């Protein structure tokens, strides 16, 4: 379970994440939707403690990420496709990560098989295609067999067969009782995968609701998404009883001296 509370991150004078609060519950896939640049990746980095929030906090299984005892066994993350040294093989990359969290070496071969990289495991990882690199990132996320998974745009670079594969994989991981948090800017992709949706725009929460509920109010899910994010219409997820009101204008940001 991931709990995000009033998470806020500022880069200079830009508010990248604005008092964001939501939960990611176990046993289901939660989609994390928003247009490009809406703060999805920043939120993920804040949850993982890679960036420090200016306010608020995120907890995984009740602890801040930096207080986790065996981080890779408690949460697995895919943030960017190429978070590895290009000169090291996929196998060596995973073996190093496994060693850091006391994970058995045999698990490395297991996850390489699982993501279909066993054949390319000894090549320099820099030679992997984007799709293969994405699979290596997924292998790293699954290394510690964690109850919580965070994946930032995991379908990027995957071919149709790969997309089908990851959809099945994530659904089965959720079916095993894991909390699976998947970001995407593609509503069509998320609709096939997630049961629950967290929608953000300009760093603010726009909706925290089930897929069924969001699509009920519009002719299609896509239209519902565009209404939410395009017009920056405020939305309150009734089903979750979420108490924060998001009404009111966007925080006005004006550069000094501009008219």
């Amino acid at each position, binding site marked *: 379970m991931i709990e995000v509370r009033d998470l806020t991150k500022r880069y200079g004078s830009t508010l990248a994440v604005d008092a964001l609060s939501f939960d990611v519950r176990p046993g289901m896939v939660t989609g994390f939707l928003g247009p490009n640049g809406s703060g999805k990746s920043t939120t993920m980095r804040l949850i993982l403690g890679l960036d420090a929030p200016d306010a608020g906090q995120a907890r995984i299984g009740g602890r801040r990420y*930096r207080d986790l005892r065996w981080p*890779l066994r*408690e949460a697995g993350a895919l943030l960017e496709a190429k978070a*590895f040294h290009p000169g090291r093989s996929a196998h060596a990359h995973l073996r190093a990560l496994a060693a850091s969290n*006391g994970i058995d070496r045999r698990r490395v071969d297991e996850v390489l098989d699982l993501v279909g990289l066993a054949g390319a495991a000894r090549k320099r990882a820099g030679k992997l295609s984007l799709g293969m690199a994405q699979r290596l990132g997924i292998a790293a996320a699954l290394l510690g067999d964690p109850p919580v998974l965070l994946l930032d745009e995991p379908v990027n670079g995957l071919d149709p067969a790969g997309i089908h594969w990851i959809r099945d994989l994530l659904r089965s991981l959720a079916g095993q009782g894991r909390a699976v948090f998947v970001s995407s800017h593609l509503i069509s992709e998320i609709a096939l995968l997630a049961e629950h949706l967290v929608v953000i725009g300009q760093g603010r929460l726009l909706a925290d609701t089930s897929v069924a509920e969001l699509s009920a109010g519009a002719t299609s899910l896509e239209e519902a998404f565009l209404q939410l994010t395009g017009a920056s219409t405020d939305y309150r997820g009734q089903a979750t009883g979420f108490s924060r009101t998001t009404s009111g204008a966007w925080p006005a940001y004006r550069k000094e001296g501009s008219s």
Partner: protein
Amino acid sequence: MSALTGRVPAGHYRFRQVARMEWIKLRTLRSTWWALAITAAGGAVMAVAIGLNTISRSADLTNNVLAGVIPGLLLIGVLGVLVMTTEHTSGMIRATLAAIPRRPLLLAAKAGVFGAMALAVGEAAAFLAFFAGRAAFRHGISAPSLTQPGVLQAIVLAGASYCLIGLLGLGLGAIIRHTAAAIAVLVAGVFVIGMIIGAAAHGLAAYLPVFIIGNSLTATKPQSCAGAAQCVHFLSPWAGLTVLSLYAAVALAIGGWLLVRRDA
């Protein structure tokens, strides 16, 4: 859910696990082995060249052949920089910090593993340079032996200097994060500024890394300043070692502090 969380073993990650990760990272890059091989070979080649061209019998012969360590120092310093900066340039740092969120522990393990390797390779390179240079003496010069006063100490400290310059590079890499900029600062700080200040300000010269290594650590006899008007009072070997260690420690401490404070 409970079945899943139940599999997390007792305790938590410690230095041992992080050091194992860093050791695997270091040894699974081909560039590591190339850099180390060239470091050792370069020292020996330069020592042979010095040995062949030594004419003066009164010179500190051990000190002369150990000047072969200088190009190797540059390489191992660059390798230290790369150990840190390639994490940032490749994006690996995010995978590393997701595995080990306690950043000071991460840098400590990196320093421990890389420092130990640089020390082992440095000692091997220093002894190799000594024996290679010694074998190359001509002109009827009787080569120094390990049993002569100060010789063994000079070789061992020359080996240690590889480790300390490597750690200085690692610290600079943690501070600067960009490969080219960090290497530029390392080269300027260790070599170039040494040449400029060494010529201009004699009082400071004794504290510059390249002079500490060349004139303090690897000297077998104290240099006399008797009668000279402009003479640098070089540090004793052990004082030199302390100052050089301090440089590496300060760079690593600032690097660690910044690693904790900055977003990855």
